[in-house]
């Protein structure tokens, strides 16, 4: 399946892009996270939350083809 990844703030800076398509076998949020940490070593030391289709879900939630996955660093609004 294909996932649409979005990176923000210091995460986008660390991975060097704001979005990309990511192809992977069926996986959960936590499995995707491990795959991304393998791809981008800098993520290992960073603090972020993962949103799936603009909501926060359980780490064990299974992802579907075409899901929008966002890596969100600490918020700084206001």
């Amino acid at each position: 399946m294909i996932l649409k990844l979005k990176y923000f703030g210091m995460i986008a800076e660390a991975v060097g892009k704001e979005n990309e398509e990511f192809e992977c076998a069926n996986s959960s949020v936590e499995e995707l996270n491990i795959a991304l940490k393998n791809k981008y070593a800098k993520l290992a030391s960073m603090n972020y939350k993962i949103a799936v289709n603009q909501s926060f879900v359980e780490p064990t939630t299974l992802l579907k083809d075409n899901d929008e996955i966002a890596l969100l660093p600490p918020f700084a609004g206001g």
Partner: protein
Amino acid sequence: MSEKKIKNVFVEGPITPEKIANSIAHHQVKTNIGAHDIFLGQVRADEIDGKLVAAIDYSAYDEMANKVFDEIRESAFEKYDLTCAHIYHSKGIVKAGELCLFVFTSSKHRAMAFDACRYITEEIKAKAPVFGKEIFEDETHQWKVNK
């Protein structure tokens, strides 16, 4: 699933005092309002390791942020007896001394306006996916994190 239209909270660049004045003026026809509370966030020229913050460059996960702002606003209406509640947040460059957040609550009585304005402001700081790059005078930067 019916999709309600979600308001765009973001303003490009700083929020101006004129925008705030216009917003206040628009509420003068609502003669059941007795109290307004307005929170304004202003970019501070903090000194960090001897360097001054010159501006914050705000970015956001727009679609999610607008949904979160809408949920915060709706929950404020559920919790408090409000006449109106408005939220505006900057995107892009906001210089030190300029305004980046405008929360505006109105109610018949003051307690509800105060409670709701503070609630909305705290919720925004905790829940809105908005990111801030603090740009120093020497053009280096660091990423702001809300406390």
